[in-house]
């Protein structure tokens, strides 16, 4: 084995003697690579405090903490991640999972500090030497820990739907719902924003667990109208969904609908069964069977109260039934939610108008508390010349008649004034009727708000256009031209801005830019007001009102200045279904608090 070569060979590397000895490079003078995973940076204004970084950190190195300078608001918890460098392993999974892309790791990796407390810090808030470092690890563009694209829902195409009132959206299949539910990161930003604070991540998780019954139970804790809300909710939750910052928000509304759709009405009693509620003999009257009235009734029954609803119209649902067209919300789905609420022992009397068929003071005498949730059913008029013509209608009144299957005028050419969802509802409903009657659609909807600023949901505008309605926004109505007692059309001028510098409603116009929309019939849809004439003057006087004459209530209990009178629904906030559901629930608790005092 040992040869002379083996003795001499080692000496042949003598040249190494002349080299500077190097083992590893001096870390103090060596910059980290461009994508080095060094110390944390957080763009504090971009971060929304969703806490997804905290959830993924396997070392529990992140705690979400309050920061004095950041207030919580819709879409922002107000918390920010605090990192503990006694635990962090610089894996950067927190960076990869960050929903907004605010979190990064700089390429700085040396830091000496004598105070151990400094090693727990809030990146972006607590100043650190590497705050301005430009290089470091950011999540690569083409890699995601969760899909950013939403699962689209099968729906009727314009040519299939433009002549009928059949529901447009077909609902998710099991597989689609699973894929969509899987995208949720369970941050709960949605729950905080939802007026009813529904347990959204929880019911979405129930879908992932293929347990829709559990999902239904979770929904009923805060919302007894899941079929309805699963279709037409204004989904504030989706607007703030943390995934919406870099991709599509979770389809929370459709997932809610999916759960409710999966459980047949006949199974509700079984699925939602609860331990028997202790009944009491206190009686509550609810005026109006809209979302707020129904929600209050349901939760009051859960608390054991004897509840009776007085409804002016023939069926329950309020605006949900008499405002929203069937292609968005089929009546049988309303019935499904309503039936379950009524099955809980809620007494309801239809076709009774309080103030006419029964007096308000009688209610006060007969019941321990009264909840007013009559909504906004009185259409407002633009009061421009010509609005007194018989072919000028209020959208809300036409929608009600359509629901009731009453005959309405459907002219060949129609103009709708208004840019909100109700305007879209009547435009699309009349378009369908025109299509059926004349084989073509000639309807124009016009609003003060310019394109892109209309209050209606974007999908409503898009779908209306797909159905051949013309949406021509950005005009102020001036006059309905009438010749020989027949409407000729609507004269409009360009609207420059709807609000003034202080943000108040105060439209400004360019009178020189005029347009004329030909029509035989005009529909006004510029908003609705409440009709509270049924509250007798002696009570009305005792109610505290704000500067605009609206009744003031306690924001937590919805109790008015008359202790036995609670007011909610669209009269107080919204207008939309979910606010009604939420304040109906709160009023139920408020009434319970009042009666158990």
């Amino acid at each position: 084995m040992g040869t002379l070569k083996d003795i001499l060979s080692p000496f042949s590397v003598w040249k190494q003697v002349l080299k500077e000895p190097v083992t590893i490079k001096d870390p103090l003078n060596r910059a980290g690579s461009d994508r080095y995973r060094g110390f944390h940076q957080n763009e504090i204004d971009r971060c929304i405090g969703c806490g997804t970084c905290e959830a993924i950190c396997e070392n529990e190195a992140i705690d979400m903490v309050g920061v004095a300078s950041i207030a919580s608001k819709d879409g922002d918890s107000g918390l920010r991640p605090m990192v503990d460098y006694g635990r962090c392993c610089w894996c950067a999974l927190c960076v990869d999972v960050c929903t907004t892309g605010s979190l990064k790791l700089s390429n700085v990796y040396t830091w000496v500090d004598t105070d151990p407390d400094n090693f727990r810090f809030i990146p972006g808030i607590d100043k650190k030497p590497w705050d301005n470092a430009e290089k470091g690890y950011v999540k690569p563009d083409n890699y995601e820990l969760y899909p950013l694209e939403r699962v689209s829902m099968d729906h009727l195409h314009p040519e299939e739907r433009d002549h009928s009132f059949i529901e447009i959206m077909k609902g998710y299949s099991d597989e689609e719902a699973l894929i969509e539910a899987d995208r949720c990161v369970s941050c709960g930003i949605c729950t905080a924003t939802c007026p009813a604070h529904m347990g959204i991540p929880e019911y979405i998780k129930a879908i992932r667990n293929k347990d829709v019954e559990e999902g239904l139970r979770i929904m009923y804790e805060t919302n007894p109208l899941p079929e309805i809300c699963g279709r037409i909710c204004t989904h504030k939750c989706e607007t703030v969904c943390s995934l919406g910052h870099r991709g599509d928000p979770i389809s929370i509304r459709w997932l809610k609908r999916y759960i409710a759709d999966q459980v047949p009405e006949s199974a509700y009693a079984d699925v939602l069964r609860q331990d028997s509620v202790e009944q009491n003999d206190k009686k509550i009257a609810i005026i109006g069977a809209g979302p707020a009235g129904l929600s209050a009734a349901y939760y009051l029954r859960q608390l054991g109260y004897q509840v009776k609803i007085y409804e002016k119209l023939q069926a329950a649902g309020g605006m949900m039934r008499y405002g929203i067209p069937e292609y968005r919300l089929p009546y049988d789905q309303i019935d499904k939610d309503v039936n379950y609420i009524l099955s809980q022992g809620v007494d309801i009397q239809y076709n009774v108008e309080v103030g006419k068929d029964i007096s308000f003071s009688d209610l006060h005498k007969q019941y321990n508390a009264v909840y007013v949730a009559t909504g906004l059913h009185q259409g407002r008029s633009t009061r421009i010349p010509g609005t007194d013509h018989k072919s000028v209608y209020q959208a809300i009144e036409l929608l009600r008649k359509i629901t009731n299957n009453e005959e309405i005028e459907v002219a060949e050419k129609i103009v709708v004034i208004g840019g909100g969802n109700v305007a879209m509802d009547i435009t699309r409903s009349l378009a369908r009727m025109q299509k059926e009657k004349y084989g073509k659609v000639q309807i124009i909807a016009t609003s003060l708000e310019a394109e892109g600023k209309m209050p209606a949901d974007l999908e409503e505008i898009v779908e209306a256009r797909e159905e051949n309605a013309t949406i021509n926004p950005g005009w102020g109505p001036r006059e309905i031209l009438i010749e020989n007692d027949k409407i000729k059309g609507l004269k409009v001028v360009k609207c420059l801005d709807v609000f003034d510098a202080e943000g108040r409603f105060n439209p400004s116009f360019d009178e020189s830019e005029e347009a004329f929309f030909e029509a035989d019939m005009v529909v006004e849809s510029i908003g609705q007001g409440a009709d509270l004439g049924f509250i007798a003057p002696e009570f009305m006087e005792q109610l505290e009102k704000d500067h605009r004459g609206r009744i003031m209530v306690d924001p937590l209990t919805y109790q008015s200045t008359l202790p036995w009178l609670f007011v909610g629904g669209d009269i107080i906030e919204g207008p939309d279904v979910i606010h009604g559901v939420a304040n109906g629930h709160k009023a139920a608790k408020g009434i319970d608090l009042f009666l158990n005092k």
Partner: protein
Amino acid sequence: MSKKEFFPMDGDRTKYPEIKSDGTADIDLSSHKYIKLWHGPNHPGITGNMAVELTLCGDEVVEGITHVGYLHRGFEKLMERRKYIQNFPLVCRIAVPEPDYNEYNYATCIENLTGIDVPEKGMWLRTLTLEMARLQGFLMWIGGMAGAIGFGTVGQWANYCRDLVLDRFEELTGGRIYHIYILPGGVRNDIPEGFKDRMEKNLREIEGFMKDIRRAFFDNYVFKKRSVGVGYIDPAWVFDYGIVGPNARAAGFKHDIRKNYPYAKYAELDFEITTAKDSDIYTRAFLRFEELLKDIDLIRQILDKMPEKGDHISKVSNMMNLKIPAGETYVRSECTRGEYGYYLVADGSEYPRRVNVRGPSYTHGVALLEKMLVNVNIADVAQLMVSLHTYPPEIER
């Protein structure tokens, strides 16, 4: 004192200690023939914390009992309480110097059970990191081997070379030691611009050093004198003791997972299994040195074949919610020390039911080492351990 009295071993080392009828060694400490010596848990000849309780008779080991448990880790148990994705920062710590095999095996287990695909480029990048890991692993090992018998300078050259590879790791993955680069569906980041050229420069420098290391260390009378014929692994033990990797190949076994069960992109690479016959410390050392040189060639091949375009990772479902249907899988890869295996059992939940890590160190570093220590000279214990190339953290997974 005569020589015979001073060395009572009588030339035949296998005679002591005598084996009792129950099969255990008859070591009577009160006879003053034996002393106990703890080798470790902190000892420069050990990569990581582990102790060998030696019983010496003179300068000769008559019994060696391995003691692990100094690292208090329990990775396998910890993994059962973390979501699948959360285990990536954990698995890379099971074999500290070679995180990538852990990442690869664990990710592949998940992919096997969920059907997640890995795009072509992602697979090439995985193969690249696996070979880079081998290169730096062997370089570190040379440092250990040389250091164990006093060739500190060689160890420093080797570690300098390893640092060059770590520079490339840092550039590619963002981390020098813990790369956390391989994730379900591919790898986390694309290859940076100009990486190949920088790597080539490093490889040339390493080749230069390897020439010197060969002259100074492998063609060295002292090293040969110390290692040839010492630490012999009988080929007959290979199956009984689960010996794999260079330890088995140096005993003549032509077995390399990369060839026998090709995975990643190995089927598209041109290389042969290295084997040798003499199965002693020198043979194993030299075989690793040869494999190291082959690695350099493999890295070049991989970078030549690396696709310019294409995704490095596929689209995956939400990793925060990943549930794996009930099932089990075993994934193996060839690390510097042989077959590295992950056995994963899923129960349909978001957490692994069981992950079993089969690292070569377990067999080499415990059962085999205890067998080989007997009758070894105390001065050779460190180099014997290093020649088996074990990582204590991997034993305590």
